[in-house]
């Protein structure tokens, strides 16, 4: 999946920085999105939407500004990251615009465009302001505390659609848990980078399992347990699953202890079973997953998951064409959690596969950056951020296609949801930053051990 040179010593200085490749890919990404927008208009009203030029120019401007920021401050960054993000974001806007046509009273595309703009602005801000990702290491505990606060705050706000993950102030609402996942990834990376040796090689041996000393393992397990408990209280199983997966993957990458993974998976299975049978909201999701068509047999009509499967099936191999499907039958959350069903119906298995491959490429570039970096924090951060994307895609895509029980989560960049888009742009900005660091011709002379020790000392 990743580069074959990964294990080799750092590559020799590169003569090219590949910014030209990035620019031409960006042009393609913007054009594909604009074509998709025009195709929706042609399919629905036999005319290219009048604002197609404006839409194209807007998206093009965002892409251009982002590109300039990268060119200015991260000239050696991976040239695939930004174009893929722009393409996914553009396609998401097309799909949301297409679904807006079915619900004229509830237009989500303009809002999504504003959020995307904000996301790109944050992307630029991060790329410009964060000159060295290792700075983040200093704020490990601050990010941890902030993440916990962000996760706890929504409990004091009313539940929306069964999940207490929203903060609503005025007409403005966002999901703080989305931002929390970046902060947690930063904390995990910093903490594991500082103590991975202690985790891996010290401690007592209990039966065949070598347990690290409580002093090392304690804080991280506490944080993790706390976050899981908070999430179960908020009834947001998807994010809980994501945090757990992130924790396990980063722990494994840092220590290589398969035994812990096994224990972790066992705990997760027990936890999932307990939550699945006790919590009614989650229990119904599991029932749906086991038999998506039960409500049809009971004479209550198809449930959301069944409607989603119908949509995928209607797409077949080549899809119905943009604007010509009926995925709006899914009803509630068609533009957010179930956006992939629209892609599956209108773009077919071919289009869906292309989307999955785009995500896979994004994740692979993140992993590649992780492999090329020399400092453990950068490595773990890259792996963590890429894994967030991978897990998120798997959890929601697997959910809407009936592979795993459905949990509410946003498809990165595609789905309607401001907090999610902004968060994902920040993730891309951080990946740009670490990949620039990994590919820069002159490796920094900083000894990684020094940074790690500094963090240890800060504790």
């Amino acid at each position, binding site marked *: 999946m990743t580069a074959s040179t990964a294990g080799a010593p750092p590559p020799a200085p590169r003569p090219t920085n590949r910014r030209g490749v990035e620019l031409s890919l960006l042009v393609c990404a913007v054009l594909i999105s604009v074509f998709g927008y025009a195709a929706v208009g042609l399919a629905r009203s036999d005319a290219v939407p009048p604002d197609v030029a404006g839409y194209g120019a807007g998206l093009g401007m965002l892409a251009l500004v982002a590109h300039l920021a990268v060119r200015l401050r991260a000239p050696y960054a991976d040239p695939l990251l930004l174009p893929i993000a722009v393409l996914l974001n553009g396609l998401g806007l097309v799909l949301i615009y297409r679904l807006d046509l079915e619900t004229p009273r509830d237009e989500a595309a303009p809002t999504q465009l504003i959020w995307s703009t904000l996301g790109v602005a944050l992307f630029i801000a991060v790329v410009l302001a964060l000159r060295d990702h290792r700075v983040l290491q200093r704020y490990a505990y601050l990010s941890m505390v902030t993440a916990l606060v962000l996760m706890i705050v929504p409990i004091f706000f009313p539940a929306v659609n069964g999940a207490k993950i929203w903060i609503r102030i005025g007409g403005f609402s966002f999901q703080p848990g989305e931002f929390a996942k970046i902060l947690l990834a930063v904390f995990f990376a910093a903490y594991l980078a500082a103590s991975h040796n202690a985790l891996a090689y010290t401690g007592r041996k209990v039966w065949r399992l070598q347990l690290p000393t409580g002093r090392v393992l304690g804080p991280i397990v506490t944080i993790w347990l706390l976050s899981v408990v908070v999430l179960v209280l908020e009834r947001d199983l998807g994010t809980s699953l994501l945090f757990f997966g992130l924790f396990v993957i980063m722990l494994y990458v840092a220590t*290589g202890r398969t035994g812990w993974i096994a224990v972790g998976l066992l705990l997760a299975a027990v936890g999932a079973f307990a939550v699945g049978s006790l919590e009614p909201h989650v229990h119904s999701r599991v029932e749906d997953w086991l038999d998506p068509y039960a409500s*049809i047999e009971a004479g209550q009509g198809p449930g959301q998951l069944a409607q989603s499967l119908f949509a995928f099936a209607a797409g077949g191999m080549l899809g119905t064409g943009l604007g010509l499907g009926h995925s709006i039958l899914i009803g509630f959350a068609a533009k957010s959690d179930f956006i992939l069903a629209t892609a599956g119906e209108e773009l077919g298995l071919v289009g869906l596969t292309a989307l999955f491959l785009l995500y896979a490429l994004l994740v692979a570039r993140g992993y590649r950056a992780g*492999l090329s970096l020399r400092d453990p924090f950068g*490595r773990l951060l890259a792996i963590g951020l890429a894994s967030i994307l991978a*897990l998120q895609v798997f959890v929601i895509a697997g959910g809407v296609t009936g592979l795993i029980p459905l949990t509410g989560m946003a498809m990165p960049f595609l789905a309607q949801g401001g907090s999610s888009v902004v968060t994902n742009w920040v993730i891309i900005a951080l990946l740009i930053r670490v990949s620039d660091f990994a590919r820069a011709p002159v490796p920094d002379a900083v000894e990684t051990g020094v940074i790690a020790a500094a963090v240890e000392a800060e504790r």
Partner: protein
Amino acid sequence: MIRYIRRAAALCLLLLVALLVNAARIQLFQAEALDSNPANRRQAIVRYEQPRGEIVVDGRPVTGSRDSAEQLRYERTYKDGPLYAPVTGYASQTYGTTLVENAEDDVLSGTDPLLAPFPFWSDLSRGRRPGGDAVTTIRAPMQKAAYRGLAGRRGAVAAIEPSSGKILALVSSPSYDPGVLSGTGAPVADAWARLNAAPEQPMLNRAIRQTYPPGSSFKIVTAAAALDAGVVTDIDAPTGAPDPYLLPGTTRVLPNEVPGCGNASLSYAIRWSCNSVMAHLGVRVGLPGMVEAVGRFGFNDTGLRIPSGVAKSNFDTRMSDDQLALSAIGQFDTAATPLQMAMVAAAVANNGEIAQPHLVERTTTAGGLTVRRWGRRTYRQAMQPSTAGRLQRMMVEAVKDGTGANAAIPGARVGGKTGTAQHGLGNTGTPYAWFIAWAQAEGQAQPAVAVAVVVEDASANRADISGGGSAAPIAREVMEEALRLPR
């Protein structure tokens, strides 16, 4: 750490493969089953996404489509809905389709593969063709005359062109507007409930889906059986039927409405509708002979389609002689659809041959190219041509100087037969007045129309009800329109 990163990457790859395999499972292997799941509304949505093709009467569409802007978008509208309801049926988003709307649904909804310019076109393009049209054989003036003549009374009219089997008029009364069933929602459900609960059963297509005891009009069938079987060789010779006539094996007397039926000839019996003579002849032909003869007319045929299914007209196949005697005059369990009795008249008019009755002449694409054309075919040979000739003479006499005088049309050769059928327990129900007839314009080689009329009139004086009184004028008006039409 590098090794572990690679393993984590492998896990991500595994997740990707799982997603792709699962997507292929849903989108390719389970697609067909999911697409055809009755709870999946896509098929219905696609079906109503385009206007439905039209049903055409006399060159003009009697249907239309209305853009409802709902999910099931185009709703059916009908011009003169009640008039043509027994022909078109309804096409409802909620309750499906009936009659021509049902029989020609593939063409009307655009799924018929023959609508495509090339074979397998629809498989490739995935799209539907615009709905095609169904051109009916109905003639608007005749349909209107029949509907006007029934004037809301319970009854039905069926008219056929004897030589071709074209159904020229098909009227059921009282009728309903099928347009009220188009669409979805509470108004449609209310209309459905109201129409189904109405005591006069407006949605019942009496012309082809309801059977009535045919009464004396059935005597034509019995006469044909007697002539074909050689029981009667000379229609003007006495038949030896006594009056009063005792039903065989009983002491019940079969009454006659008219005098002079004792030992009357077949010709006299048809002209004045003698019960005793025809019952006697039916018994002499015998049960097997009668069953065979009525079968040649289409009785007991469960498979007649025009293209909608026609209810089975009944003649019992196991009876005692007294029951046979009653059955031979269209009583007891004998029951016929109006269309069946029109076929009886058509058989007489067309020298004994019944052309396959049909309602749809051809189907066309939206652009007017013919998709299918109805080819003339023979339904059955009901009787020998010579028998038909003699029956024609007797039916003409019945109109000229007999019970059917009300159907006479100046300048045309008209043959007819009345019928009055009792029904209900102890014959307390309102009698059905029948009239079957055919008409031939002067100078024409063959009769232009055969018609059957049945009227049930609860408000009329019971003594007044007779085929000659209330049914024959309707038949005359329908036949006059038929003769007036350009051929």
